[in-house]
């Protein structure tokens, strides 16, 4: 087994210093906003995520190595180009894991944590899940192991990917140069991803390369006329880390418990967040179409003459 360092663990001191720098920058310029309890919760979620990740890593590593050792088509080794290939393929897998993380409630139960702050700053980047290993996310990486890339290389690349995503969680940077905005995930693209404005829901799932969103039709640019409002469609009314970490799992459990049929039970797990058999809650698609309807109605309203 290839012995590679965990890049995210090594980056932790830099994360701390950069959050501190953004706090002071925001205080001086007003171009970044923080709130003490929100920052505390985000950072506690980050620490908890590292701890839970360390406790459950053996599951993912064991399964991935079992697949790779028994079913890999090729032995690609560990040349530099394998790392480049692994980085690109892992980023593609990340795109689909992330997209499903928003479109399947089971995976949303883990990912929702990252979206649960109403702030958007570098500390939000560290607000990470505690329950990622309890979702089928790892299955999306199987094709890479089957191709013959050793899992350690893929996990190393995933770490670098996560480090890349740290700096894009900021309001302090408006737009990067056009070519960069076209190719890469940026603060502007990711602000849209964290926004709960109906216009911006379910967009910009990219990790590093923005090309996946452009390719698979999920790209929405940030509009100057519509500032992002961050958080969930129904924001959490608590900073309690345990409630933040587990709330959607509790919701799923309650819904499954009260469901009338097995079909409903399955869909409470696999359908998009907000799905109910009677349509009494709203999915992001429903919120978006209601918003479009309201806009249509508004534009039909005769403007009062003055």
């Amino acid at each position, binding site marked *: 087994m290839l012995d590679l360092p965990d890049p995210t663990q090594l980056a932790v001191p830099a994360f701390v210093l950069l959050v501190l720098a953004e706090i002071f920058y925001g205080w001086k310029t007003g171009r970044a906003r923080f709130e003490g309890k929100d920052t505390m919760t985000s950072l506690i979620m980050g620490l908890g995520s590292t*701890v839970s990740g360390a406790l459950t890593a053996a599951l993912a590593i064991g399964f991935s190595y079992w697949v790779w050792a028994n079913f890999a088509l090729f032995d690609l080794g560990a040349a530099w180009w394998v790392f480049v290939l692994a980085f690109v393929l892992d980023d593609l897998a990340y795109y689909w894991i992330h997209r499903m993380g928003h479109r399947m409630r089971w995976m949303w139960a883990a990912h929702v944590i990252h979206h649960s702050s109403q702030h958007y700053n570098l500390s939000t980047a560290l607000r990470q899940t505690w329950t990622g290993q309890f979702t089928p996310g790892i299955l999306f990486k199987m094709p890479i192991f089957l191709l013959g890339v050793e899992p350690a290389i893929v996990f190393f690349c995933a770490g670098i990917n996560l480090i890349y995503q740290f700096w894009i969680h900021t309001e302090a940077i408006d737009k990067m140069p056009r070519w960069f905005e076209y190719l890469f995930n940026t603060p502007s693209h990711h602000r849209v991803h964290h926004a709960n404005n109906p216009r911006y829901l379910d967009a910009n799932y990219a990790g590093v390369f923005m090309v996946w969103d452009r390719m698979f039709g999920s790209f929405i640019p940030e509009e100057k006329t519509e500032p992002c409002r961050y958080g969930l469609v129904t924001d959490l009314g608590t900073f309690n880390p345990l409630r933040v970490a587990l709330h959607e799992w*509790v919701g799923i459990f309650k819904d499954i418990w009260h469901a009338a049929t097995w079909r409903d039970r399955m869909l409470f797990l696999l359908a998009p967040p907000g799905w109910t058999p009677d349509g009494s809650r709203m999915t992001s698609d429903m919120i978006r179409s209601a918003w479009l309807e309201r806009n249509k109605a508004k534009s039909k309203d005769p403007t009062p003459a003055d």
Partner: protein
Amino acid sequence: MDLVQIGGSLIAIIVLAVIAARLFPVKGGLTRERVLRNVRRFCPDIEFEVVSAKVFIGTKGEAAVLLFPDPHDGVAVATALGDRVVVRHIEDLSTITASRNKSGLTVDTHDFTQPTVALDLPEEQVSDLMALLTTEQSISGGPLHA
């Protein structure tokens, strides 16, 4: 990850959070305007005249209950969470429990993501709100979907 790393991380977290709290103090609680703006955002499909909405705001601006002019629309509960506002729309009042506490009123929405909401209110407002919630409850008595 060992205990020393966890301890060190916890210290760093507390230091960062305290600095953030000092440099970005939370100013001002809920006002009628702030409650209305956030309720409108959260319930875009409910159209109502701002002047006809009854809003009860806790004396410290910590939380508020808004009664929509049309009783069939139920109520909205707004809470100040740090410097932000969180809103819940309760259409069916039988799903919440309102009770008096020492300094006002407690509303329990029985929602894992929204712990009990306590409002500091003058006695006459507590009575008004309790009466209104009770009346509303007797009007609704069940799900209010048409």
